[in-house]
């Protein structure tokens, strides 16, 4: 079944309610998987709603064939947030039902940073920051020079924007006017140990991107309607689009939100119970 969901007429209150419910369920799923073994919960929770909306309502994909040639491509440049990607892939059937339980276990397909070798739906192996975005730009160039209509969507973190390679790629994307590449910054305003502004500030982010010749769209990265509109509206100008999605690290669980400890951690039994209760 190929999906052509990239149309605002197919996106309304019903879809938003469905996404809200699924988002909560996937957060619960991720917490249970991460308990006892750990995982990048904070960043996965900030990026989840973006990735979920992409796979559920935006990406032109064939749910029967993850390698369908004309599919839109998705690159998770902040590869440490694989839990969010895996949870969504499991939800739409690109992983086996229940497979996420095997996350990081011996013999599993699901490494701590997403690997593409055995999972057809994952486009590339990422994990080191500032790599996926450059590859995504190369893929967009490939589509452009071969006259293909598919698009590339790429999620990068705001902390990832510390990497010089990100800015090299932005220069390149604007130079080649790659309007078939949509870059989404998961702007949770935190890095591993502290707020981004206290480590290596990248603000004012939207102004920086505008000065790099991008059409900048700033949204609430947990508002499904805003995500949908920002990622599906054609560029207004002769420029590529970049979306600054303002998000909350650890979104959905009060004691995890904006707390460095939850960048990477295994919830204890009591933490898990309390977190799941908040997501009911």
């Amino acid at each position, binding site marked *: 079944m190929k999906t052509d969901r990239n149309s605002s007429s197919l996106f309304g209150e019903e879809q938003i309610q469905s996404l809200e419910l699924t988002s909560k369920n996937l957060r619960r799923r991720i917490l249970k998987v991460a308990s006892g073994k750990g995982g990048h919960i904070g960043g996965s929770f900030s990026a989840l709603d973006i990735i979920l909306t992409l796979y559920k309502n935006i990406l032109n994909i064939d749910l029967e064939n993850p390698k369908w040639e004309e599919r839109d491509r998705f690159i998770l440049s902040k590869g440490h947030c694989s839990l969010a990607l895996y949870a969504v892939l499991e939800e739409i059937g690109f992983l086996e039902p229940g497979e996420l339980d095997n996350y990081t276990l011996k013999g599993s397909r699901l490494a701590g940073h997403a690997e*593409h070798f055995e999972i057809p739906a994952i*486009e*590339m*192996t*990422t*994990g*080191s920051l*500032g*790599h996926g*975005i*450059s*590859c*995504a*730009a*190369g*893929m*967009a*160039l*490939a*589509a452009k*020079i*071969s006259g293909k209509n598919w698009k590339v969507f790429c999620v990068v973190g705001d902390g990832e924007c510390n990497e*010089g*390679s990100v800015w*090299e*790629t932005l*220069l*390149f994307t604007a*130079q*080649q006017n790659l309007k078939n590449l949509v870059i989404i910054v998961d702007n949770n305003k935190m890095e591993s140990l502290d707020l981004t502004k206290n480590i290596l500030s990248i603000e004012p982010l939207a102004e920086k991107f505008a000065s790099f010749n991008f059409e900048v769209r700033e949204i609430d990265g947990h508002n499904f309607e805003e995500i949908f509109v920002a990622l599906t509206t054609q560029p207004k100008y002769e420029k590529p689009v970049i979306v600054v999605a303002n998000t909350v690290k650890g979104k959905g669980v009060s004691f995890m939100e904006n707390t460095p400890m939850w960048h990477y951690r295994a919830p204890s039994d009591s933490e898990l119970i309390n977190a799941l209760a908040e997501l009911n």
Partner: protein
Amino acid sequence: MLWQNLIEMRNAFVAKLTEIARENEKIVLLVGDIGFGVFENFKKEFPKRYFNLGIAEQNSIGVVSGLAKEGFFPIFYTIIPFLLYRPFEQIRNDLCINRRDALLVGVGAGLSYGALGPTHHALEDIGVMSTLPEMRIYTPSSPVMVGKSLDEAINGGSGPAYLRLGKNGESNLSFDNISLAKWEPIRIRNPYRKIFILSHGAISKFVEDAINEINLPDLITFGVIEQIKPFPLDEFSEQVKKSVLIITIEEHYGVGGMFDKVLNVVNRFNLGAKVESISVPHRFITEVGSQENLLEDLFMNTINLEQRIRKAIENG
């Protein structure tokens, strides 16, 4: 004189690449703002398959990876240190871990950029690339072998590859036209002698001249390695059976270079031969001078090589 004798490695590269690109429309040439006048004709003939990516090597390797992922065969060309050292992790992750069919072409092997100083020298590149699984390394010895290596790098294997080019008017070896029928990762003249002299890259011409001067064809086997990774183990082991002394000569550090590889193989397979290295000493070459000047200072020009080979044979 054959046309091949008139050109240097860079020109041989572009000529052969143009020929291949006419047949293979998946070839895309990317350059890091290097090669004044070298690619003008390629750009004219294939305007949609030529990109100057600017001075941004990390992004460039990512773009190579993305193009390769979507079915193109990208070839990225720039000066060796910028090609390999700046974006090392991109090469490791985005090309090797992700197993992309792509080619990195480095210009300025060894001391080719002599007077431009140590930032531009490439004396550790084989060592650096040798650490990476999946990576193939081609070290052509002459312009005509650049063409053969390019063909082999594109059509003869899979995964990423690195092609190491000189820059300064390299010429061909006397036996280049003898052994062109099929790809040979190591080429041998006078097989199965007691002394085995092995070289790679453009200095092979100096080595050949020195061996000709010494003129002991019954004693000396001359081998030239055109593809150093994977190391041509079977061919090498076969040749070295009767050797008592192996002399490796390279415009590269012995550390991480052919010397290390030969030592490793001789030791691992208990081949029994003594191994001597003539290579660039393991320090940064900060003296100012052309490639010719520096090789002379380092006792690596044809006359020096002749003397050093004679001495090694006497001692060996």
